[in-house]
């Protein structure tokens, strides 16, 4: 069989790449976008939290909370930045990591007066992990209730809301977790938990 001249063969490669780019780089993502926007518009657009017509974040991405009026998410190595988020990448015998973890334990104890659950001591992989354990959420309830000036009845309702979210998160696979963003959205939207706080 005759091997065609090089320019003709290269032209064939270019043509194949061009056709495949149209199919896989334009048609395929366009079709997926169309279906996604039609069936799951909320999820496809980032599961945004919208309050009073303003985007306040995404329920999948943790954000920085300093105030005791909110539940706090896991530590972030990149200060909860959305773009360029990441992890500490500290190794298992890193002295710097040990120091950071000790500092976090001290801070936690000062705020909540208990031993911190493990996930609250170690920075997440994405720097934006929205989930914490039920224990970590319950440990923060009293501090949040106090900062918001909640009645004892509302505080107990908040505990019940956390337990309810834990049950709902179990799903098929059984990973029980509390989404800090959803919990804080509840604080901001339900008059029960509004307390004496005015929204920023």
């Amino acid at each position, binding site marked *: 069989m005759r091997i065609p001249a090089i320019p003709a063969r290269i032209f064939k490669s270019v043509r194949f790449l061009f056709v495949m780019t149209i199919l896989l780089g334009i048609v395929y993502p366009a079709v*997926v976008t169309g279906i996604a926007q039609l069936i799951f518009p909320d*999820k496809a657009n980032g599961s945004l939290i919208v309050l009073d017509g303003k985007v306040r974040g995404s329920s999948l991405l943790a954000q*920085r909370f300093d105030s005791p009026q909110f539940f706090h998410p896991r530590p972030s190595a990149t200060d909860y930045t959305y773009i360029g988020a990441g992890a500490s990448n500290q190794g298992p015998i890193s002295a710097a990591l040990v120091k950071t973890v000790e500092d976090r334990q001290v801070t936690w104890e000062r705020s909540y007066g208990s031993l911190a659950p493990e996930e609250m001591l170690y920075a997440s992989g994405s720097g934006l992990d929205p989930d914490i354990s039920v224990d970590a959420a319950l440990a923060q309830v009293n501090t949040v209730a106090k900062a918001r000036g909640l009645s004892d009845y509302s505080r107990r309702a908040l505990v019940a809301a956390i337990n309810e979210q834990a049950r709902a998160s179990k799903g098929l696979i059984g990973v029980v977790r509390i989404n800090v963003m959803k919990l804080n959205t509840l604080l901001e939207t339900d008059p029960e938990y509004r307390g004496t706080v005015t929204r920023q």
Partner: protein
Amino acid sequence: MNSSDIAQLAIVGISACILAPFLGSYMERVYAGKPHPLAFLGRFERFIYKVTGIDPHEQMNWKQYTVSLLEFSFISIAVLFLILVGQGFLPFNPQKYPGLAWDLALNTAISFVTNTNWQAYSGEASLSYLAQAAGLAVQNFLSAAAGMAVAVAIVRGIARGTDSREGLGNFWADMTRSVLYILLPLSLILAIALVSQGVVQSISGYVPTLSFEGKNGLIPLGPAASQIAIKHLGTNGGGFFGPNSAFPFENPTPLSNILEMLAQILIPFAFPFLFGAMVKDKKQGYMLFMVMFVLLSIAVWGSLTSELRWGTLEGKEYRFGKAGSALFSVLTTITSCGAVNAMHDSLSPLSGMIAMFDIMIGEVIFGGVGSGLYGMLALVIVAVFIAGLMVGRSPEYLGKKIEAREMQLSMIAIIIPNFLILVLSAVAISLSAGRAGIANSGPHGLSEILYAYSSGAGNNGSAFGGLAANSVFYNLTVGLAMLLGRFGVMVPMLGVGGSLAAKKRVPQGSGTLRTNTLTFGVFLFFVIIIVAGLTHFPALTLGPILEHFLMLQGVKL
């Protein structure tokens, strides 16, 4: 391990084992041009041939097949390089990102065309939607298709009878069929399933937000689900977002985590069955599958044990936990996927080592789509030869005599990645430009470098992410490792396919060493362990193993 960890492990393992044989026999029909359930797409297939001027019936010998593969790959690298440096002048760039620096663009272009997906950049912080969707995602499909096509061509060579008109098949037809009948339909299903869990898929720009405490922010979006689907199915692994599958928009729930793990092992699990069907001896496929599965089980057991005993949640996501992260780290490194849902740099020393060793073993524990099979065939040929010497039989594999040429080519395919890992690591550790990238001190620093070149040469793409890899030194040396680690295995193995294709099939006699038996499987297992172990044990001793003992002593560095 709690019940949800066990559920995850069981769901992924059992679904893959159930689906793989069906997919394998379906793929055999696709590549042989036999009738199959998606044959109604034949109209599109013929249309593609028409507009690209391809004659799918034109049979190629191994040299023609190799030349087509190399030409197409180098043109792909060139075009992707131009898209990456020129994205500032191209549309669908809502954040107005400028083009990448030449060394980063070259590294990234090589990375995606070689199915490695090593990333020295953060997608959402540096790339336009066009560069991601029409540049990187396209190569996710095509590099996967190329690996599958080459594997199929090599097996055709092995399986070929004496009809000399048959070649190894047609490169363009194999590429087109891999995309149209296997990768694209599966990606479409997976992409929608991922969106249902919360993976984003949008072409609007990033969303400005005001945080609960009143700070401004910008939430990144993009056509992510469509790219993430093929990233797993094609064992590519390149994240749409910087933190890869740890990022909640890329892997939002435990269920999406299961789907992503299943997707990255599905096609590699099917390849041994495809092999058995193509050589018309299913037991040959079962034997390869069992060897791979035993190696995988050992890796999963070791990694889970170490991580649950000594691991922390540093670099892990709460929704995946320690077990879901350790399992992912094994599945992404035995297949050449390289996506991560937890930072491998922060894994316990032995789990990090297992991830690294999965790659060093040659990406043959199922391995990348296609590449895992032909990588394994190189080791099978060596095992057949050694076994033949030991029992005094002339080495044959599937009725074809294994002679000096096949041995030389297989050895080249085995040695090249190992050579790249050890020599480039040695060079990096000796130069200040290499040491400058290290993030952790002590043995972990060596591990970071060793992992980087393993990942490059094995076309995996995961990393000990602390390593500052976006420097001219690392962009070029890892780029070299990816290029030679890909084509330095593909081309010799195509040579083996071509050489075996030309040989007459000798009928099986009483003197034949049977290669579809348990005995041969056990023998192959030890050949694999010895080849990879002897090569890498010294370096691993200085890295993760030393680190493990320092950890047990309570040493902090």
